[in-house]
């Protein structure tokens, strides 16, 4: 018996010291270490000192520190944070902006309400975001940015009547280019691809700002691809790329087009060095998988870690990407279907419909994609390859086994 108690004691101490670390390690917490060299670089900061953003950031932060109640100063800093989040694809800035507005002592101005709406839609809090945008518009009816965002949210939610209203309001507020884009997309999403394409072209003819041109060219390319006009889509993508702006959405859309065209090698070349962004890493991994490259497993493992990290904090904004990763890279059809369904409850754009449809087809189940069928019927959407996948779904028995 004394031996047993000795074993127990030894085991207890061993387990107690080991437990925290083993449990922690199982969710990806490696062991800490002590560097030997004081000069060892542990982290590189995202905004460099020479960067114009860095000096603006400092200036705006100082302005807020001097006058924390000044709505203009707080708005300017919050918007800069949001723009930095967009430019660098870094959500930490969204958290900074959020804390800044939360701490604002007085009643929120139209611009602060608007900015809070941007932050909320970023986290897919679409209803709250719409509330903020509408409140901003109540205070300032010609706030064209607020109309633009309302239209964008309506399209994500497949609320085409709502999008149409915002398009009209955009025109009334004097933004003809944005109105053309808004109308073009609403038409394309509701099955009128040709008219939608024309409206977007009209917008492009009017647009001089490179950012607007890039946006319109990207969306023109998408509509052309839906129409099955691959060469035209490619020329639009290439025109957009020639503008020389760094734009992750463009890179993702162009990569998806190339993957659909079975041209993975071009994606590998395009996206090398873009691993920091999860959606681009996903496309890079898909491209490596398509080429049968030995690098694919390492990229999939990186994605494993990324998604595990976001899951840990209860973040659900990546579900559409994660569904694609589960279906196409991990071949976990059950997980892909659950993720795609959950995503479709929140986001209902054609790409969201597509991943749900693909997951349901892979599972051989019609029921989970019921809402996509309903959306097709209600919207009249026509785009390829979605519209070719739909009959395959309809061929499945209605009740799942």
């Amino acid at each position, binding site marked *: 018996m004394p031996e047993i108690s000795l074993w127990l004691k030894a085991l207890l101490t061993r387990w107690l010291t080991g437990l925290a670390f083993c*449990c922690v390690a199982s969710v990806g917490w490696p062991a800490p270490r002590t560097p030997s060299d004081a000069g060892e670089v542990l982290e590189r900061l995202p905004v460099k000192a020479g960067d114009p953003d860095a000096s603006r950031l400092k200036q705006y932060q100082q302005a807020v520190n001097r006058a924390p109640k000044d709505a203009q100063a707080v708005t*300017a800093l919050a918007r800069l944070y949001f723009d930095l989040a967009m430019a660098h694809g870094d959500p930490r800035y969204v958290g900074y902006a959020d804390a800044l507005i939360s701490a604002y002592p007085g009643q929120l101005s139209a611009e602060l309400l608007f900015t809070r709406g941007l932050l909320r839609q970023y986290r897919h809090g679409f209803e709250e975001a719409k509330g903020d945008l509408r409140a901003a518009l109540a205070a300032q009816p010609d706030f064209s940015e607020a109309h633009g965002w309302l239209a964008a949210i309506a399209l994500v939610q497949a609320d085409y009547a709502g999008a149409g209203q915002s398009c009209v309001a955009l025109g009334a507020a004097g933004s003809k280019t944005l109105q053309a884009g808004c109308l073009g997309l609403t038409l394309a999403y509701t099955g009128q691809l040709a008219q939608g394409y024309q409206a977007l072209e009209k917008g492009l003819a009017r647009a001089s700002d490179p950012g607007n041109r*890039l946006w319109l060219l990207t969306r023109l390319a998408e509509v052309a691809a839906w129409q099955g006009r691959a060469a035209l889509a490619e020329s639009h993508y290439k025109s957009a790329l020639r503008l020389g702006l760094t734009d992750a959405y463009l890179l993702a859309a162009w990569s998806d087009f190339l993957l659909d065209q079975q041209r993975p090698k071009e994606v590998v070349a395009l996206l090398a060095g873009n691993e*920091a962004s999860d*959606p681009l890493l996903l496309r890079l991994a898909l491209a490596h998988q398509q080429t049968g490259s030995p690098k694919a497993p390492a990229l999939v493992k990186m994605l494993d870690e990324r998604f595990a990290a976001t899951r840990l904090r209860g973040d659900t904004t990546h579900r559409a990407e994660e569904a694609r990763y589960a279906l196409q890279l991990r071949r976990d059809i059950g997980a892909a279907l659950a993720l795609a369904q959950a995503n479709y409850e929140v986001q209902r754009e054609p790409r969201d419909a597509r991943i749900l449809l693909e997951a349901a087809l892979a599972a051989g189940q019609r029921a989970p994609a019921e809402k996509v069928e309903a959306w097709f019927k209600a919207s009249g959407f026509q785009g390829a390859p979605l519209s070719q996948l739909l009959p395959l779904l309809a061929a499945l028995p209605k009740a799942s086994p």
Partner: protein
Amino acid sequence: MSRGFWRQGVMRAVAMAWLLLTAGAALAHKSSDSYLAVQVQADQVNVQWDIALRDIQFAIGLDANGDDQINWGELQQKERELQAWAGSRLSLQRGGSCTLGQASLQVDEHTDGGYAVLAWRGRCPRDAGPLSLQYSLLFDLDAQHRGLLKLDLDGATHSAVLGPQSGVMQFAEATTAGAQFLQYLWQGVWHIWIGFDHILFLLALLLPAVLLRRRWGRGGGGVHGVSRFKDASLSVLAVVTAFTLAHSITLSLAALQIISLPSRLVESAIAASVVFAAANNLVPMVQGRWLMAFFFGLIHGFGFASVLTELGLPTGALAVSLVGFNLGVELGQLAIVVVFLPLAFVLRHTPFYQRGVLLGGSWAALLVALAWFVERAFNLSIFWWT
């Protein structure tokens, strides 16, 4: 800022909006998280807290030389300030505030970059009772920051995401030793009842307990029932005691990780033990069944241990759980014997028992166990329901 600033950016900004709404959130590198591992055993506390260097830079500043990089030397220079800042944003109570001593500083990497790792040892006023925790790191600066908590409270693990609305948490103390004991006792009972291979082995050994074999050779080696209940009981007692002793030994050794055997080997050997026990009823090979019970009981103990491993042995109540589980196995086994023995004793003289149950039952057990053996040893699937 003037309205002019806005008007200038409107077009670009809205265009960006359209692009980013559909991709924006997904483009995220990662929001800010800290990783907080807290271990409380009685009144002893260990804390390991991984905080992103970028977050520390934003809160208290680390980049002393302004080169947009943070190196180990810069972090060390700020160690005191870091400790004071982080320490003021975490508090633990168990019967009053727990005191944390000096932290040690190390570094680590997570998916989004470098982290400072602070580790404390401390002590709470009480060694029992609920634990409360207040967490407020960075919430004033980053509303999307979250603390990812792993708490080990007296051997029971909890995890939680700590946010601005959920920064204060209370955790009930782990179940008492008594409740733990009962829980594992029941698990032991349950696992012998659903462990068909263990039951089959036991029954194969017990079936002949109410019978006496006629002398070998003459009369074809037939059987007849024992005359007294006491004879049957003693025989059953010997088998059950030997089985219990043997599997208690190996269950403990395996659960304490002193010996471990590959599960395929153990499971195959268990199936083989049933085959052998059943075959012994058809063609007697071993006279003392208690010897078989002991020998094979050693193997069955490893099987029980794998169940226990799956359940997870709580670190804080290892002995209590182990004893509880083992006693549960004995109780479950006893319940089977209590049902079996009187029935078998009543039927012992009937041909139904002597031929149907003993021979038929042993054949059935042998065949089933043989199939198990093939399944387990060669990793095949024979039974459709397995």
